[in-house]
């Protein structure tokens, strides 16, 4: 191999290796890029962290319609807790404010850190379901055997398309104790 050719190879290989390394970095850069795209609602409708607290707006209550709101609760990975809504079902008029209490109890003799992740069915209703107060925005720490009653106040935006009669709101408690402690 001539020296000139070997120089050409070295130059090209350097560039290509650099491209490969920067693409590895780009993979990680996709994490914040994804967050931004999600905020702009380009590639995902709702994310767990996306459900932000809004201030109470005065809606005109639509007395002609009645929406059934159902509440589901789940504990992920058999977390030693009790977690359920105080009412399982509620009939509400769009524009009306309601508060629902969720009961949560730490049954273990240790501190548990959980985060509630919400999920809507049908998924398209999520943007009409506005929460003005919720336990789901942040991590919740439970002392051993601690009992909490956690309120969630919400309103259904009267612009909800008429085809929707029932909204199911499901909360899953994800146990994050290990990761929170090890942070």
């Amino acid at each position, binding site marked *: 191999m001539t020296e000139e*050719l070997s120089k*050409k*190879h070295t130059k*090209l*290989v350097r560039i*290509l*290796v650099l*491209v*490969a*390394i920067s*693409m*590895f*970095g*780009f*993979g*990680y850069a*996709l*994490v914040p890029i*994804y967050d931004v795209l999600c905020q702009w*609602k*380009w*590639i*995902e*409708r*709702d*994310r*767990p*962290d996306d459900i932000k607290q809004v201030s109470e707006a005065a809606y005109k209550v639509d007395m002609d319609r009645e929406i059934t709101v159902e509440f589901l609760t789940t504990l*992920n990975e058999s977390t030693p807790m009790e977690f359920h809504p105080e009412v399982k079902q509620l009939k509400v008029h769009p524009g009306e404010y309601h508060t629902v209490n969720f009961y949560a109890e730490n049954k273990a003799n240790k501190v548990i850190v*959980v*985060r509630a*992740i919400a999920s809507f069915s049908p*998924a398209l209703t999520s943007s009409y379901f506005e929460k003005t107060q919720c336990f789901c925005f942040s991590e919740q720490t439970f002392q051993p055997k601690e009992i909490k009653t956690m309120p969630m106040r919400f309103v259904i935006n009267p612009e909800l398309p008429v085809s929707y009669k029932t909204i199911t709101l499901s909360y*899953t408690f*994800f*146990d*994050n104790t*290990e*990761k*929170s402690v*090890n*942070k």
Partner: protein
Amino acid sequence: MSAAVVEHDDHDDHHDDDHDHGPAKGLLRWIVTTNHKDIGTLYLLFALAMFFVGGSMAMVIRAELFEPGLQFVDPAFFNSMTTMHALVMVFGAVMPAFVGLANWQIPLMIGAADMALPRMNNMSFWMLVAGVLLLASTLFMEGGAPNGGWTLYPPLVLQPITVGKALPFAIFSVHLLGISSIMGAINIIATILNMRAPAMRLMDMPLFVWTWLITAFLLIAVMPVFAGAVTMLLTDKFFHTSFFNAAGGGDPVLYEHIFWFFGHPEVYIMILPTFGVASTIIPVFARKPLFGYASMVWATASIAFLSFIVWAHHMFTVGMPIAGELYFMYATMIIAVPTGVKVFNWTATMWKGAMTFETPMLFSIAFVVLFTMGGFTGLMMAIAPADFQYHDTYFIVAHFHYTLVPASIFILMAAGYFWLPKWTGHMYNEKIGQLHFWLSAISVNILFFPQHFLGLAGMPRRIPDYAIQFADWNMISSIGGFIFGASQLLFLYIVVDTIKGGTGEKVTAEVWEDAAKHGLEWTLPSPVPYHTWTTPPTTVPTEHVLDTH
């Protein structure tokens, strides 16, 4: 027609050149070799072996699905089989086979003495072997091989029930395979850009070389992203990060985006070299120059570019806003345009050609027809609202198998039949070749066509048991699968037989009538000497690029 009457320097004339000796003796030759032909052979044989390993896993899957109910394997092992079948076939068989072809053919086709970086070439092959062995070792681990699907989606793949001990091994295996492919790609780019015969301009290059150049750039761009994604899985599982963990504020959907940012270009990594080989074989047997050379090059480049901006069509059901669904739907459909250009060009190449139907041509024609069918089902699934019905059913299984088996695999077979006589100097047995073709072409349709019906009827993929209304088509599909699997033993026989002497017929340098008009490699003697193009050719065949000059 400058049919390259290239005076090839017979290697016997070069006793003074210390590079000009034959291969080293003994087994060590294959371990330390830096000769592009040896490494090409290693890649091809390894890929062939992995084709049978991955194929055996497919046989386990089809045997279990022969009837409803659980017969042979437990569900976890079944899921390991679907996962491992995919990983072995993609990373162990199809990709290495094309790298093997690149190693053998690119230097011969561009008039270079060897690959640009021969030692790195050796290293990327052995790293591939290490990666695949690491992956295979998970089969024998407590908890079994990974069984969360080859896409390794969290949270499933991180849950204790699916992980076993295998996950970190699978992830490190992906790292090794990734590094191996990236090194291979760098080598191919350096060879093509720096070592072409001076007479060969970029737009003179055979299409196989063009498609591999573009594929190599895809590899360098996306393999590191995949490596990043699996590294995030690893740190999520073992180092308390929360990239994909909802409890820690992460999002599993993020993984799907990163994975498919890699995954979509990856499927073109497996199909673009296929296009290149088809564009090489069809003109030879149609006895016409390739129709639309320049448009073929541009179509390949366009497909490669588009592959980066359509990834989310793999995840329409994930809950995208309508604008996203529409964008990814239309962007995906645009890919049909350059792909259509290619299919029409191949058809136009055959139009009014003096065609003969030797085995490589038969496989190539079957590729054009059956790949087009796979492309059409792809268009069906590009329709976002319809995709909700097809998603994760046997319809998608039928789709991607049509674009991989009677496309990539058929063309790899065609390439084997086409170039084996050149490499070995022996002719393969045409009768057995044709038998292999007809058995494969018929059985592959019995195998995969019914899966369209199963998918449309709602049979989900990756399940070991199914509702009885799916029984009949599954049984037919399995029968096709067994015939297809058994037929491939004929290919194994032919490869071994041809290497050992074949029909005994002495092949000419051209092997195929007037092949030297189509490519430089046919101006070399058969079998190809161990060292070739120690002095680059002074003229190159340009018949294949007639319309650009």
